Structures are given as C-alpha cells and as structure tokens.
C-alpha cells in the first residue's frame, strides 16, 4: 500500500474539493428533495385529479428507472437541448445551466422527492382523521392544521424511513463522477489515472464514505431523538434499501 501521494498538494486539493462538492450535493438535494416530497405526497392525497395523476406518474417513473439513466438524461439529454435554444448562451442563467453540479442536484432532488414522497404519502394517510378534525375544532385554519398537526404527525410516523433515505442519498452521490463533476470518486479517479495506483485512492474514498455514513447515521439519530414525541427506538445501524411505503405504518 502506497499512500505517499497524499502528501501531494494537488491531490489534497482534489480530495478537498471532492469532499466539499459531495457534502454540498447531499445538503442541497436533501433539502430540495424533502420539500418536493411534501408537495408530491400532498398532490397525490389532496390534489385535483389531474395533479394527483401527474404526481403518481412522476413517482412511478423516477422509482422505476436507474438513477444513472436519469442523470444522463438530464445532463446530456436536456442539457444539450437547452444548448440549442438560441440566445441562451448569452443569458445570465447560462453559467448555472452549464454546470454539472446543477444537473446532479436536480436529478437527486427529483429522486428524493419521488422516493420520500411515496414514504410521506403513506405516513400522511395514516394520521388519524380525528386529530385533524380536532385541530379544525380548535379553530385552526386548514394550513395551520397541515403545518402544526398533520405534517409533524406524519413525519413522526416515518422519520426512521426518511433518515434511511438520506443515507441512501449519500451513497448515490458518487454517480455524479460520470458527468465529470468533481466529487470524491472523481478525485480518486484522477489520482488513479495519474499515479497508476488502483486500490489506494479507491480504498481511501471507501473509508471516507464509511466514516460519512457513520457520522450521518449518528446525526440523524440525534434528529430522531429530539423530534417531539418520538419514542427513541433501537435501530439497526444501516437502513435496508429503499423501503416499501407500507413499512412506515406503525
């Protein structure tokens, strides 16, 4: 095992940039994705029929196709189409539309929105009707019922599943190395190509991911513990893969 390349300033910079990009992608897509998930879940439960159908179709397509295919579709497919629009290259948003980070964040946001939206839909549907009626009886507006009662209760029901989704999101981030975005894996690929060392960079990245998974699990566990009304549950260390929505029932 030869780790002498770690001394090299260039490689350190690659790794740090990769690490920062990885974290950023995780944070941006987690926040955007969870907001989208609430919208998708509500659209399916309460939206007018066309909107509910649209949300359902979105969920089926995003959950039924590989994330890598989606990433290529948005980056190469949609990205190239946008390129062809006359005048767009002079517009102020072009630097964003050219950036692979944008497409990575977009794809992950949509993906989290679909998977977590399905989880949330199950949870929202399982909040007893009586609790919402109680809120109305106390004179809350429908929005207040939603933001103070319905949504928090639903999150309470499926928080472990949602935190599991976040760990799965972390593990999807290396896919962006295929669209030439400098994440940790891309940094490792560059180091591998330049030093001809196959294992060491990849092992390092695997170690970093292992550590990140552990840290994220601990952080999310604290979130769960401090969420009002959560029973501290004994949980297994890692989530199993994307759970069926029904796992959110109790």
């Amino acid at each position: 095992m030869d780790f002498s390349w770690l001394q090299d300033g260039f490689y350190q910079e690659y790794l740090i940039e990769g690490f920062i990009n990885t974290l950023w992608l995780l944070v941006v897509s987690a926040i955007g994705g969870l907001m989208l998930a609430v919208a998708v879940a509500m659209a399916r439960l309460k939206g007018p029929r066309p909107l509910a159908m649209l949300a359902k179709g979105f969920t089926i397509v995003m959950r039924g196709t590989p994330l890598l295919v989606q990433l290529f579709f948005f980056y190469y497919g949609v990205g190239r189409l946008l390129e062809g629009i006359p005048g767009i290259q002079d517009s102020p948003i072009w630097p964003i539309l050219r950036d692979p980070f944008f497409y990575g964040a977009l794809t992950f946001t949509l993906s989290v929105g679909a998977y977590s939206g399905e989880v949330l839909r199950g949870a929202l549907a399982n909040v007893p009707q009586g609790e919402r009626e109680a809120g109305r009886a106390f004179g809350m507006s429908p929005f207040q019922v939603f933001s103070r009662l319905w949504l928090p209760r639903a999150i309470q029901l499926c928080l472990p599943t949602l935190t599991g989704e976040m760990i799965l999101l972390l593990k999807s981030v290396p896919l962006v190395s295929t669209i030439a975005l400098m994440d940790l894996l891309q940094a490792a690929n560059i180091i591998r190509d330049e030093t001809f060392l196959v294992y060491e960079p990849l092992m390092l990245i695997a170690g970093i991911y292992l550590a990140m998974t552990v840290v994220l699990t601990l952080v999310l566990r604290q979130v769960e513990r401090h969420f009002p009304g959560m029973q501290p549950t004994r949980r297994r260390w890692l989530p199993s893969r994307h759970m069926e929505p029904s796992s959110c029932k109790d």
Partner: protein
Amino acid sequence: MDNVSQEGLLDWAGPILQGALTTLEIAVLAYAIGLMLGLIGASARLSPWAPLRGLATVYSTAVRAVPELLLIILLYYAGSQALTALTNAFGLPGQVAINGFVTAVGVLAFVQGAYMTEVLRGAILAIPRGQLEAADAFGFSAWTRFHRIVVPAMLPNALPGMSNLWLILIKDTALISVIGFSELFFTIQQAAASTRAHFLFYAAAGVIYLIITLSSTALFTRLERRVRRGLPHQEEA
C-alpha cells in the same frame, strides 16, 4: 448536423434489444447467486458460532455502508488482480483479463448478497419458534426442516424485501456500464454519442427500464399472493 442525425432509433433497435437481453441475463444470474449468498449469510448471522456470525456481520455491514458504484469499480479491479495473482501462483504467467459478463454478475451478486442477508435474516427470525420446535419434535432432518418448514414459513415475510431487491438490482445493472461492459445502458450511451440524439436515446433507456421494472412488479405481486395463500389477509391502509 443533419448528416449525423440520419442514423435514428430504428438503426439502433437491434443492439439496444440485445443489450436489454444481456442486462436481464446479468440480473437473473446475479439475483440467483445473490440469493444463495444471502441464504449463506443469513444462516451465518444466525449461527451459534461467534466467529461465523462476526464474519457475516462485517460482510453485510461493510457492503451496505459503501456506495455501490465504488464497490463495483473496486471489485472490478480487485477481481482481475486477484485472479492474475492466483494463476501466477499456479505457474501460469501473464495477466488475466476477466470476461466482462462474469465480472458484472459477480460484483452485483456480491452486493446483492449483503442486502439479501438482511432480508432473509429478518424473515427467518419472524418464523414462530413453535413451528421449528414442532419440526424437531417430528424428527425432521435439518434439510427437511429447512425446505418443508423454514422456506415456506419465511417466504411471505421475505418476498416484499426480495422483490424490492430485484427492482434495485435491475437499476444497479446500469452501473455496470461504468466499467465498460456493453449491457443495455452502455449500448444506449454509444447510440447517443454516435447519433448525438442524447435526449431521444436516454428517454428510450428510461422507457425500457420502466417496462422491465413495472412488469417485474406485476409478477412479484402475483407471486406474493401465491405464497401468502392460506394466511390471514393484510389490510391495506
């Protein structure tokens, strides 16, 4: 511009279908091997012998904590180097270039086995103890107990997780394109690059994967209904 886009979807239909077939072959084989690995892993995790339990726990935990793409790349290189070392040790000089198909199946099965271990372990633990004790009381041999009692009693619990893993496996096969083996998504990438109709071909890829996953879901639903026969109905919320 126009002369490159004359080659269209139809010209690539043959290779793409071929690629889809390869993807299905990889997935079916990897699933079968992953199922066996999962059975071995689950029995190891439930074994009374601590070292065996520890080994299985390390396998399933480490594989589940590291991103699949990273594992696939790592195992791809590790696999060919390990085989080269092995053949050199037997006195055969030179590099071993492993067949892409074998690597793809091996790597995906290895990852799949770790997840399957957890699914099967949970399902086996959910079997009421009395059923196993009854089998012992009737003097069943270990094998008879396994295939007469354990498997049928565990399947209703395991099948939802197993169908989930199959869908994930189908989607994970696309990752194989990263190591350059020409399955469905690699063929699509080539088609998109050569025709420059990126939007069209990646959308087509999405449709093909969607057809595979949706028909698998339908199949698994029927299978689930079959293994659940005779059990009380689960009320759906």
